[in-house]
């Protein structure tokens, strides 16, 4: 394989990995607070359609992003209310969110199918950084949202491990009763974390409909929300590892497409299976690792917190 091919492939891996990265970062925040939200796929879809609709209405991609953030946040608020306040089953509630989101996005987006986004995010080269050999064309000739995702990874890593708020958030996810005892509001932190997670999932969806494939298609996430949920485990709840993982999956996505254009004779159906198969295999290996190396999930993950039952 020649160098140009590799560089194009890796640059596409970043683009294809970005929606997964954004959603997975959101799920890291949510899960770190002790709440499991399996509704990522649904929140992404609603984010994608709402962002697209706002884009059509206003011709402004940033307003699209704003609306997607709000829509994702509102979806997550439903999850927060049902699981935190009403202590509903988090797995089933997340599924409900995905089913509802799939339906709602299809319902809202029906008349938007097939029209191109009027104002999509375009790639541009970052001064200086974009001229670096290899790294420039791969990482710094992307669109604005990709740069936002780099910043988010750094900010989130610093937030979680270097700030007081981050410490509180992790405490709530590890041992809510102890956090409560020292005066941290478990309910408020969990609500905020779940909503922030939903906003990022919405943003991931908007990346699909405003940058990656600037249009709206029913079910256009095609399981990326679920891959994002799996990726959180793969990344052991670490934002930086999450970035690496996202690009690996993005690369698989891109590879399938590139192989076809090179005229290699494999059925496209098999190529499309690659990301799903890879996710499952990776998940199995990582689960073995976590068992031996004790890198475990937040201890209170998916357990409702009941003050009186402590």
């Amino acid at each position: 394989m020649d160098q140009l091919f590799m560089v194009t492939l890796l640059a596409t891996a970043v683009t294809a990995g970005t929606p997964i990265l954004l959603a997975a970062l959101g799920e890291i925040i949510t899960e770190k607070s002790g709440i499991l939200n399996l509704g990522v796929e649904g929140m992404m879809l609603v984010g994608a359609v709402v962002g697209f609709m706002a884009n059509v209405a206003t011709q402004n991609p940033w307003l699209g992003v704003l609306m997607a953030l709000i829509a994702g946040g509102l979806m997550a608020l439903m999850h927060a209310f049902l699981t935190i306040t009403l202590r509903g089953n988090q797995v089933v509630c997340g599924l409900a969110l995905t089913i509802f989101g799939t339906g709602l996005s299809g319902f809202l987006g029906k008349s938007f199918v097939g029209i191109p986004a009027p104002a999509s995010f375009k790639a541009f080269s970052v001064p200086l950084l974009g001229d670096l050999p290899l790294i420039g064309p791969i990482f710094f000739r992307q669109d604005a949202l990709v740069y936002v995702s780099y910043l988010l990874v750094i900010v989130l890593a610093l937030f979680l491990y270097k700030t007081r708020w981050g410490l509180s958030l992790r405490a709530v996810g590890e041992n809510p009763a102890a956090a409560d005892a020292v005066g941290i509001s478990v309910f408020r932190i969990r609500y905020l974390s779940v909503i922030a997670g939903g906003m990022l999932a919405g943003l991931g969806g908007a990346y699909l409909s405003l940058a990656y494939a600037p249009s709206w298609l029913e079910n256009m996430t095609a399981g990326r929300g679920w891959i994002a949920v799996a990726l959180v485990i793969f990344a052991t709840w670490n934002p930086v590892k999450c970035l690496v993982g996202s690009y690996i999956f993005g690369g698989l996505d891109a590879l399938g497409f590139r192989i076809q254009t090179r005229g290699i004779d494999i059925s496209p159906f098999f190529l499309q299976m690659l990301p799903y198969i890879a996710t499952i295999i990776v998940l199995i290996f990582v689960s073995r690792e976590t068992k031996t190396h004790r890198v475990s999930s937040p201890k209170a993950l998916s357990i409702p917190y009941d003050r009186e039952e402590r």
Partner: protein
Amino acid sequence: MKITLEKRLAPSTLMLFAVPVFSIFLALLLGGVFLVINGSNPVEIYGMLFKSAFGSSYGITESIVKAIPLMLAGLGVSLAFRMQLWNIGAEGQIYMGAVAATWVALTFPGLPAPVMIPFMLFMGFLAGALWALLPAIPRAYMNVNETITTLLMNYIAILWADYLIYGPWKDPAGFNFPLTPKFVPAAILPTLGETRIHLGLIFAIGAAIVIYILIKHTKWGYEVRVIGESPAAARYAGMNIKKNICLVLFLSGGLAGIAGMAEVSGVAGRLQHGISPGYGYTAIIVAWLARLHPATLALVSFLFGGLLVGGFAIQLIGMPAATVSMLQGLILFFVLGGQVLTNYNIKIISSPKKSASKEVE
């Protein structure tokens, strides 16, 4: 004033029945708001939905046809849920069952019906069961989250079925449509009179009875219930949890596989693109709404079968197909929220806490 939740000693019986009914009502109400925003008349749309599903004998029989896969897959899903195993791969298991049954019908077209149908049924069951066993083994022995793996395998199964019908199994006389040749008559399930209700209904009812007896009246069923309710107690009692995880998911997938077999053999008469329009996902809602009980499950399957039939009808007047899955998601939301009323007493107390905390400040 403060609202607190107080855990009930036993779930309220009244709420057990009232909650699902109210959930559906409130979901329709909120769905109606979305319809109004979208510029449609909810009364007209719901009326049409209801009338086409339950307003004629044809509608009712069609609702039963749609209830068959929901009931089979729902039984499978609820069996796994009993053990706190989140099998959300019923959709893929349906597809694998459909593929395996189709393989039998296309490979051995000379078999007589009394051999063909049981063979297809067996292969459909086996394929669905093995497809669920694949994520079950890592779940049991390496603690790999089955929610994600079973779900991701849906995509693989659907792509596999698409590969076959767009490729090696494509009907040469099908004008390039993504479907296999029509099955020989021996591979088609008999139907009831003039209706489209097929033998799959008997499979579903039979499966419900078998599962009910297994769970309520056998030692194994007791084990499953104990493991589901208290894994620690089960371990202490020396129950083999790992083996039971595999067995339960195997059966769970097998039931969904039968649903797939019944769809190709009883409804479509061939394998075609989109053989299941999301039955596997709807089955999850059905199972939860029925509180995992086989008899209630039959009733809820019928209602949701009707919702699907109505969904097709409202598409004819230009409503999106997704309207129905939106309503389904809303129903599940309200059921989940409503369960708090079943398990908790809501107490509204005017507490002096607020003023006390102010004094501290």
